[in-house]
Every structure is written in C-alpha cells, then in structure tokens.
C-alpha cells in the first residue's frame, strides 16, 4: 500500500484520472473528510461497507453442485410463518 501524507486541501491523483482530496480535518474526532473525483464507471465505497457486501455476494453465489436444493423447503417454511404472499 502506498503511503503519502497530505495536508488539508491537498490531493492525490490515481491512474491519471481519479483525484482524492482532503477537504476537512476534524481534530476533535479524528475524522478526515475526503472528496473523490472519478469517472462514472469507477465505483467508490467506504471499505467496511464494501467488504460486507462483497463477502455477502461471494457467499450468495449458488454453487452448481448443491444448487441450493433446499430452496423449495425454505420457501415453504417461509410462506407458513409469514403473512400470505401473492394474489392466489
């Protein structure tokens, strides 16, 4: 990981097209506010949130072998414990 020091209002440029700028430093809380400028197709997320979603997505992939075979079973259990679903 590249480590750089920046003062308030200073920036770094990534891949010639992404800019990360320090816009506010709150001494009391130790919070740093960053502004990120990047092309639309570049996604930007807080790391902990990204990690949570990425992990959840990875775990959610249906494995071909098991094929989530117990889905009908769970669907049935769910229908029984919830309010009626659907218009039938």
């Amino acid at each position, binding site marked *: 990981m590249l480590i750089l020091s920046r003062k308030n209002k200073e920036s770094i440029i990534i891949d010639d097209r992404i800019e990360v700028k320090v816009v506010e430093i709150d001494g009391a809380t130790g919070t740093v506010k960053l502004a990120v400028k990047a092309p639309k197709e570049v996604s930007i997320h807080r790391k902990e949130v990204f990690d949570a979603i990425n992990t959840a997505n990875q775990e959610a992939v*249906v494995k071909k072998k098991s094929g989530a075979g117990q889905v009908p079973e769970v669907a049935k259990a769910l229908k029984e414990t919830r309010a009626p679903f659907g218009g039938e």
Partner: protein
Amino acid sequence: MIQTEKTLTGQLPFFTKGGASTKSKEKQEKAKTQTQSAAKTEEGCGSELNLPFGIIGFKEFKKAEIVFSEEELPFLRLREPGEEGLEFLVMEPYGMIPNYTLEIGDEDLRDLNIESQKDVHLLNIVTVHGDQRSRVTVNLIAPIVINKKTLQAKQVIVSNFHKYTAKYLLHENESTE
C-alpha cells in the same frame, strides 16, 4: 433521493406476465405460448436485465435473467446466460421485510435513468448458508435496483446503510437439541 417503503402486503413480481402464478392449466398453456420468446427451461418466464456496472465483487456480471419456479417462490433466481453462468438467489423485499425503508442516492438513480419512484423495482440477494440450521439471510444494504422501463439494473448501497445489515436472518430451523 427516492425513498421506498413497502408495507406488509404480498405482491407478485412485476415480471410474472403469465408465468407460474396462473391457476388453471388452460391459462398456463396460454401463458406459455405468450412468453415463448422469453421462456426458459423452468416454469417461470425470464426477464433479462442489463447491469452495466456489474455487482460488487463481480464486475463482469452484466447480463442476467430472472427465472423462477412456483415451488421456490418467493425466491427467484438471477442467472447469467450460459452453462457456466453465475447464479444468485434473490427476492423482492415487499411483504417479507418489515419496515424496510431504504434510501437510494440521486447518483445511483441517475446512473439508471430512473425518473420516478414507480419505475423502481428491487431485488435483494439471498444467501442460503447450507449449515446445520439451514440459515437463510438476505442482503438489505445493497439491493439490486432495477429500472422497470429499461431493465437496466445496479447493485446499490443504500444511503441509510447504518440501519440495515447484509445478513438479515430470514429463516433458520429450530434447534433440535
């Protein structure tokens, strides 16, 4: 910013056009021919989504079809075309998740060209954990937001993510001990 809140009323998927929900066999036959062009091997018909940004951790997941079978409802499957395509179990939150008031940011709405709340459709990714207690969880922080008109979709992290979890427990079996 669009806020969506769904109350505890059941609602069929918007793309069910003559799919597995129809009652009589006759109706089913008719529905089958109507959806022949989008028909897949399972009972339910498919709606094909375009995900220009992929989904988190799977940037190449750009085209997927929604398939379902009666016995699996309310769960649906989101599946990439092809033999080796990735597949996810998904569901609509309506009627299943109480008090799910999510906030979707303007940037995300713009990315999907969504102009009004009624164009929005949501699918949340479900994980079947395959553990002893058969836990099933659903991701409430990052729903797949769909523009009903264009069928463009994106996995969006809701603005009020502090309120929710990526592993909301939907179901687990009682302990037998």
